[in-house]
């Protein structure tokens, strides 16, 4: 593979993946300390407080 220019990863790109992606472990056997879904809602509130939500151009087709 060719060397691809790697700038520092933008925080938003990282959060798209770390807060919306990754395997979510739920269930009684886990401590499930982090309710990240809830936190994501808070983050969205934070974001929309500085900027009107940009609507998706088309429906989520995946």
């Amino acid at each position: 593979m060719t060397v691809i220019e790697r700038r520092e990863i933008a925080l938003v790109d990282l959060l798209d993946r770390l807060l919306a992606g990754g395997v979510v472990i739920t269930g009684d056997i886990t401590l499930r300390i982090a309710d990240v879904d809830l936190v994501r809602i808070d983050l969205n509130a934070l974001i929309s407080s500085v900027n009107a939500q940009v609507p998706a151009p088309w429906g989520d087709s995946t």
Partner: protein
Amino acid sequence: MTGLRYVYAVCRPFDAALQSQLTGVAGAPPKLLHHRGLVAVVSAVPERDFAEEPLRAHLEDLDWLTATARAHQGVIDALTTVTTPLPLRLGTVFRDDSGVRMMLEAREGDFLRTLDRLAGRVEWGVKVYVESAAGESAESPQGPDTENGWAAGKAMSGRDYLRRRSQRVKEHESGLRKAEEFAERLHEMLAAHAEDSRLHAPQSAQLSGTSGRNVLNAAYLVPRAQSEEFVEIVDRTKGEMPGIRVELTGPWAAYSFAGEKP
């Protein structure tokens, strides 16, 4: 090790050693916890920061979240050089090693299936932005008029003003529509060159700190061996259409494809 267990990823066993300098989210080096045919990559984290209440509070602190997200990514990145990790959601914490082992055992089948699906694949991110005044005038359609007309002291009739403003709104709408059509075509084409794809919500300009309006924020699952070709396809679309910017990020571990298929 004492404290809680933060889990970054689940992998199949691998031979290579992790970089000795690697540190995890709370500064402790990540360790490999083997259980049957799987390996959890874990590090000790203190209860004062990672128990439920403090963690919840910390996640709303953008500086803390930034540092933690970068440390998590650092571990995942190191893993991608030696294996194909299955990344876990940020902030997955267990009481102790036996909790991690129980989780591995309970989800063994799912993990093995997903690891097979992702083996040798990476994720590429592609974003499309509408540049140009079209994107900005959406926020304040009368902005340019104020500069060119009123502020310069030129007389402008109400009808002229309204006509110019409606013209700008039309230009903006047609620019945005073209960009959306471009993004949709690009997405279809890239999805055809990928094994799977996901659409993320468009990013807010305030949060990303980049110019232009984000109309496509997508992720594509591509075999490593075909990544060069995929990158070339994306590169060819750059500059294809004036006023539109295409950005590529990656290769990422397959964060966006770690869940079961929707």
